């Protein structure tokens, strides 16, 4: 029935195919995003609402240790923005959970599995596209921050470093999201399970309130929470008020701790997720 002759499949080293296939899947996920702009729109609206709520509802009530007492709510808004950045990129992992669960439920994973593609490309493509979307989200959030009075006080390099740390963190939690997504029986469950762990993760941190007000056990958890580290690192790099910094190692070395914990999380959850993806064949 066809006139085109049977093709030769191209040859490339295995790692080359992983990159190629990962790129194809990333592209597919990004095209899908543009076809449902509503989803992207609401994923942008949510953090903006958080900024406005925290800035104008809690703002005046939360004093920031070390900040100019006369600055009041303005100091809190400067303190808050890196917290919102950290929280927002953490919540991005829910998109990975739901995206994978949806692919599985709709059967397209069966298509991928029956193709001679690199198996883990589906997961690498998913995490890559979810992180790329965060670039846009961070841009919108930054503009919102500038409007409510947040400023970048340090240099360009420091600011870029802060954004890169946020994206690294987004990538790490996105792998956790993938691993969770692969266990989901359907998208409805994924919608809940993808979010539920993120509330304690982001709230048991210095994202919104200084560590000083927390009971000792909670404070210890918050000190070692990677969210606290990435948020504190951003505050330092952007030159925003840092609040109280405890003696705990992650608080003293937030950049190193962020990079180390992200590397560890990626190592663990990428391995687990790839294994799970292969097993559930």
């Amino acid at each position: 029935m066809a006139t085109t002759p049977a093709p030769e499949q191209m040859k490339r080293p295995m790692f080359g195919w992983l990159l190629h296939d990962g790129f194809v899947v990333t592209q597919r996920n990004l095209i899908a995003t543009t076809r449902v702009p509503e989803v992207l729109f609401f994923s942008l609206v949510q953090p903006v609402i958080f900024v406005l709520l925290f800035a104008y509802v809690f703002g005046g009530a939360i004093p920031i240790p070390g900040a100019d007492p006369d600055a009041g709510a303005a100091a809190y808004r400067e303190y808050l923005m890196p917290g919102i950045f950290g929280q927002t990129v953490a919540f991005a992992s829910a998109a990975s959970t739901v995206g994978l669960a949806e692919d599985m439920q709709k059967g397209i994973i069966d298509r991928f599995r029956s193709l001679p593609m690199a198996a883990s490309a589906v997961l690498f493509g998913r995490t890559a596209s979810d992180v790329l979307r965060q670039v846009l989200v961070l841009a919108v959030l930054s503009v919102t921050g500038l409007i409510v009075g947040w400023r970048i006080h340090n240099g360009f390099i420091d600011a870029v470093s802060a954004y890169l740390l946020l994206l690294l963190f987004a990538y790490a939690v996105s792998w956790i999201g993938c691993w969770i997504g692969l266990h989901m029986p359907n998208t409805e469950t994924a919608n809940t399970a993808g979010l539920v762990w993120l509330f304690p993760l982001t709230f048991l941190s210095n994202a919104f309130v200084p560590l000083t007000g927390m009971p000792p056990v909670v404070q210890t958890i918050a000190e070692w929470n990677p969210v606290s580290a990435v948020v504190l690192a951003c505050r330092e790099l952007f030159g925003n008020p840092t609040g109280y910094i405890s003696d705990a190692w992650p608080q003293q070395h937030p950049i190193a701790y962020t990079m180390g914990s992200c590397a560890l999380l990626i190592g663990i959850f990428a391995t687990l997720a790839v294994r799970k993806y292969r097993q559930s064949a």
Partner: protein
Amino acid sequence: MTDAITAERLVKHFGDVKAVDGLDLTVPFGTVFGLLGPNGAGKTTTVRILTTLLRPDSGQATVAGIDVVKHPDEVRRVIGLTGQYSAIDEYLTGRENLSMVGRLYHLPHGYVKERSAELLERFSLTDAADRPVRTYSGGMRRRLDLSASLIGRPSILFLDEPTTGLDPRSRQQMWEVISDLVADGTTVLLTTQYLEEADQLAEKIVVIDRGHVIAQGTSDELKTQVGGDRLEVVIHSGSNLEDASTAIRSLADGELTLDVTTRRITAPVSGGSTILVEAVRALDATGVSLDDIALRRPTLDDVFLSLTGHAAEEVAVDADKPARGRGRGRKGAE
């Protein structure tokens, strides 16, 4: 030359359910092979094993001479799979879907472009090619799904219930498309619960029930296995059913079946069309008048009934059907 597909004593459990229970299969190259069975017979599980989506608990299977468990990647290079549920991306356009699959088959860019256009044309999807699949009808999705499986010109194609859920017109279209493929020399393994479909498309049919093969042969061989012709008469409401039965019993080779409500008498007979003449004479002699009389060969429905003791459509066990929504029975597959 080796066979296109072989399976030896395949076994796959899902918990306590034996979905596939010692299944043997041999499909020569260049044939259309029908895997026929009711829901839960193990058809989908068998296809999933052969297409490397599932590992069997025991037994062996090869596709194009390649072991599916030992070398799944090599098997994937030569097969195409179209499942019961459209394995295409809703948000991408038809063309984007084909391009994605072609690239993941690692085919050259120019080829993928050309071949996609050709397939879209062949499957009457050119007009819709640049619309997101979300806007497609069920029949269009199924055709696109099949196009995606064909992009790399696989030598062996697996079609798992390709027409389930389609309206009669779309089904007819699918049948035409599948027939064309066969003319092209592609080996096709087709699962179906529609006896008519297996009869239409498959040269050879394997009937499976509860995970193993219960009969195989050509459609004609299976029908012969069940027995010869059947005489069916429908008696006019003014005539006596008893008299008619007596007249027909004298011509029959075996037991009559009598349906009182529809006033239909069915009898196994032999002797070809002369028996029709004899039947009309005998009934006329007893003064019975007829609404209808026909001689018919057994259908695959009859085959199924006589082989399994139940009709094809009325089976409750649902082992290889998706457990939830549009997904697959993935829980069990882990």
